[in-house]
Structure formats: C-alpha cells, structure tokens
C-alpha cells in the first residue's frame, strides 16, 4: 500500500460572521498518497478551498479558525508547528497554486524576482545561480523564451503563461505536496489541457502528490487517482477514480455524474440537481443533501449518516447505501 504523505483527521474549520459562527469544513478525514493525485470535487462554497487553506494554515484571520483536528504531513501535525516552522513548510514541502492566474502574481515584481524569492528563501540560492534556476524552471513548464520572460512583469504574459509561472514557482523547491485550487477554471479549454498536462507530467517526474481542487469532473477523470466528493463542508463519498465514476453510490455524486454535459444528446435538456446548497447558517439537522436528494427517507431528516467504508476503500456517507449494505450483509 502507498504511504500517505498527508493525513487529515477530523478537521473542523470555522468562520465567525456577523450572523454567528459557521462551520465551513466539518470533521473531514482525507488521505493523500505519496506521488498520487487526489481530486477534491464539489460545488462552490462546499468547503474545498477552505480545506486547502487549512492545510497551508492560511485561513484568513481573525475570522477563520481551525478549531479541531489534525493535519499530519509526513507524520508530523502541521497544526502544532509554530508560525516560523510552518513558514518553512509553505512553498518548500507543500506549495499551492490558485484559481486566478491574473491576480495571483504580484504586478510590481518581475517573474524572475517572484520565483527567485522562493529559491532564495528555501534553498538559499542567490545571484546568477538563482537566475539560471528560474530560467530552467520556466523552461520546464513550457514557457517559450524563458531567458526573456524571466525579466518581464506579470501583465506582459497571458493567463495561461501566468498559470505556468505559478506552477514553476510552486514546484521550484520540489515540494512533496502541491495543492492546486481550481488551477484551470479561469483558463480557456485548450490552455486548460496544456496546463493540466504539465502538472501531471511534473507530478510524475518529481514524485509530487497533488491535491487537485476542481468542480470539473472531466479534469478529475483525466488527472486523478483518487477522488473525494464534498458537500456542505463534509466528505460524502471517497474512493479511487474508477469506482467513483463507474459506480457512484451517493445520490449527490450520482447527480453530479448525470449533469455532465457530454452525456446529453442534441436537443435534450441538461440534467441538473434541483435546489440549492443549504446555507452554512442554516444547516439541516440530518443529511445536508436530503432536501435535494432523489431518494429521501425519514431517517435522512433526523440524523447525519456516517462515512462508511465499503469495498476497496470506497467510502460513502448515505443512509440509503448504508441500509442496502446492511441488507446485503445480512443476506
């Protein structure tokens, strides 16, 4: 069995708002295996990004707060580290790329400066050596004329090029884990494919694990080994990519699969999951998906189901699946 590079246990991240405390991430367990790509899927506002910021301990203060849980990176709990030790992890062992390449780079510094900064901070590279490494990194992510781009400013590059720069920056210290928060959402489709290809290739080459946050199931199928589906702050289904796509068990995952546009014939309406994500201020007592579920039962309103493992590491949080499983078991 592959060794876990990151183990999240019972993570709870809360935000205090003017309307009271809300739990954005509710008791999440997640394991990311060394060198593998883990997809984290869900709608906007389900807690994907907060999970990733929690791992980096960059949840915006003072409103956000990680109140419970453990985040074990190579068996040491990141939540126990002091700020200075945590800084040595960021950008070095774990690095991150963000959704918006247009705004994620500082407009007043050159590309070379922004990549070089990481190299100097974590690897102590200076001067000529630093510059050469920057150029090498840019070359690696497929940027043409890297020796020129290194002296340019972000506004002189296109969105796809900027995201490549972000990847180069994130991979500059050969991190063991890369968190990519919707890295291709803001890019157009052809560029998306290129950027994903680069990430996949580098992950293999450098043996870097990736936590890929996305709401694009096509990207997941293309890239990931494992998938976790999040809904309203909780993981509702988890497993390897084949099981999830061939045999989705949770009704939310089933709904997601059914609403993929490529399954629709011309003239047919796009399928969708009716209803809205419940507000974090006003969570149902039972299963958070119950109001939108196509197979609601009485118990779903009353009690939140547990995340239960079935075969082959496939975990589901659903009463219907649990009961069926019990029945099968009893037979």
């Amino acid at each position, binding site marked *: 069995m592959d060794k876990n590079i990151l183990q999240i246990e019972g993570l709870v991240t809360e935000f205090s708002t003017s309307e009271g405390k809300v739990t954005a991430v509710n008791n999440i367990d997640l394991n990311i295996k060394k060198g593998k790509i883990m997809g984290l899927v869900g709608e906007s506002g389900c807690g994907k990004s907060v999970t990733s910021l929690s791992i*980096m301990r*960059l949840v915006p203060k003072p409103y956000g707060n990680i109140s419970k849980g453990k985040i074990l990176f190579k068996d040491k709990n990141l939540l126990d580290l002091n*700020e200075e030790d945590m*800084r*040595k*992890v*960021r*950008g*070095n062992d774990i*690095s*991150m790329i*963000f959704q*918006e390449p247009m*705004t*994620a*780079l*500082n*407009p*007043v*510094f*050159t590309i070379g400066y922004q990549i070089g*900064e*990481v190299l100097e*901070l*974590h690897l102590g590279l200076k001067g000529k050596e630093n510059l050469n490494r920057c150029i090498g990194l840019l070359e690696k992510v497929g940027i043409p004329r890297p020796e020129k781009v290194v002296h340019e*400013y972000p*506004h002189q590059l296109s969105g796809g090029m900027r995201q490549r720069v*972000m990847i180069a*920056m994130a991979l500059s210290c050969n991190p063991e884990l890369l968190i990519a928060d919707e890295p291709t959402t803001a890019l157009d489709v052809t560029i998306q494919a290129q950027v994903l290809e680069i990430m996949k290739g580098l992950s293999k080459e450098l043996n870097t694990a990736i936590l890929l946050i996305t709401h694009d199931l096509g990207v997941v199928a293309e890239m990931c080994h494992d998938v976790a589906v999040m809904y309203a702050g909780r993981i509702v289904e988890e497993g390897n990519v084949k099981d999830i796509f061939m045999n989705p068990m949770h009704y939310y995952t089933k709904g997601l699969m059914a609403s993929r546009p490529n399954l629709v014939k011309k003239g047919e309406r796009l399928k969708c999951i009716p209803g809205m994500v419940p507000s974090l201020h006003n969570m149902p007592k039972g299963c958070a998906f119950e109001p939108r579920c196509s197979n609601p039962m009485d118990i779903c309103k009353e009690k939140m189901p547990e995340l239960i493992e079935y075969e082959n590491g496939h975990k589901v949080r659903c009463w219907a699946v649990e009961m069926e499983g019990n029945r099968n078991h009893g037979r």
Partner: protein
Amino acid sequence: MKQFIIRRLLIMIPVFIGISMIIFGLIHSTPGDPYITMLDPNITEADREAMLNSIGYYDPLPVKYIKWIERAIKGDLGYSIRYKEPVADVISRRIGNTLLLSVTALVLSVLIAVPLGIVSATKQYSVFDYVATILALIGLSIPAFFFALGLIKVLAFDLGIFPISGIETTGANYTGMKRVLDVLHHMALPIIVLTFVQTASLMRYTRSSMLEVIQQDYIRTAKAKGLSERVVIYKHALRNAMISIVTLISLSLGGLLSGAVLTETVFVWPGMGTLVYQAILNRDYPLVMAGTMLLALCVLFANLLADIMYAVVDPRIRYE
C-alpha cells in the same frame, strides 16, 4: 519616457500662457485703484491722470497683458506697488521661509503617516487602529487655524514654551548656530499644525490602500510561498500600496507654496502665503501676478512629477 517628459513640458507652455491670461484678466477686473496711496494727494486731477496714463493704467487689458508678458519673458516681473522694489526680490526673500515650513511638514508627515497607516491596516480594528483613527478624524475635521490658535493659547501663551509668532526673535540678531536654534524654536508650532493636518489625511489614505492591497490574491500567494509576515507586508503589499501613496504625495507638492496661507497668517510667518494674500488685498498687481504664476507653475510641475512617479513605481504604466 524621455519623450513623454519632453512632450509634457511642451504642452505646459500653452497651458501656462492660458493660466496667465485668466489670472491677469481676473486681477485687473477687480475694482479699485492701487496707485491712490502712491501719489501725492496734493497734485491736481489733471497731473494725476497724466501720470496714470504714462504708466499705462488706462491701456486696454490686452495691451497691458502683452506689455506684462513681454517683460516677464525677459525676466522682469515688474515692480511691487506696495513694497516699492522689484517683485523678484520680494518673492525671493519670502519663498525660502515657506519652503522651509512646508517641506519640513511634508517630510515629517510622510515619515509619520505612512508607518502609522501600515500598522493601522495590518492591525485593523485593534486599539492602536482605533486610537489612530480617532486622532486622524480630529486632524481632518479641526480647522487648521483653530488648532493653531489653540496651540498658541496653551503652549505659547499659558505655558510659554514656544514663541507666539514670527520666524525669529526680533531685535536679537542671532548669528550662526544660535540663529538656527531660534528659527527652529519659532518653527515648532506651525510645523506641528501643518504636520498634524497632513498626517491625518495621508495616514487614512495609506491605511485604506494597504487594506485594499492586503486582500489581493498575490498577498495570499506571497504567504503561500513561506515568506514572513514582515516581507509580505513591507515588500509585497507596501510596494503596491505605494503606487497610490506616491501619486498623492507628488500631487501634494503642488500645494507646497500655497498650502499654508492660514497657518502662515496665524503665526505671522513671513512666507509666500501671507505675501500673496496681502498683495491681493492691496491690489499689488505685479506681485499677485508673479506670486500666482509661481504657484501655478508649482502645480503643473507637481502633476508632471506625479505622472512620472506613477510610471516609476508601477511597471504596468508605460508612456510611449
């Protein structure tokens, strides 16, 4: 960039001529005769008319303007009616005093306001932020002359720590280091007033631009790189916030010569503000013309400087 500056300087010429026409027209259309006190009251009406005619008092406005600008281009700004000496001499005697006051106040307020604004923004809603905000609001809302009078009453009159007015002790004729200390002593109160008022607005401005920058995505990127809070704030955030702060400071340079009329008046500081103000009251046309044109020139250059600085601090701005 070089081309841009040259082009801007050339554009300034017609703008400057336009300004001079407007000011000239306005000043000369104000009612009243400045020469009334200049002439011997015992001369006959006919002699008076003859004299006024000879100095061009009855010339039509365009003729007067052309005469003025002809001389001004040659460097002759005319003869002050009130001070009875060349305008250039009067101004050169005063301009240093004003610059001393306003440059010191500007430098001090930048040194105080920018750090305070940064701390206020990074520790938003802290006790420090609230205290700074309250002080800034006082600074913004209190009229400068009122604050000045309050300081004179308490610090100069009641406690006697500082002199009440003027630039040096009259009749003392200090020299060397003693004179410097004496001027500094006289400067203290007006500097406090000007610095306080300028610090207030600049600090609020720094705070709000820092707050805006801190929320940007690239700040999160910088943190995710593992950079320390200090580098994130003082390098990545401040460098961006500086774009607007530097522009504001450059623009405020334009007000350096004229910005302190009230403060100069209250403290009887012999500077440009009081000079031009008095000149207007006395209808001292040549002096008003030269004074206001100097102020206009200052504003024009400050605007140019602001544009240049903007391009210097923001790589996205390039003047082609």
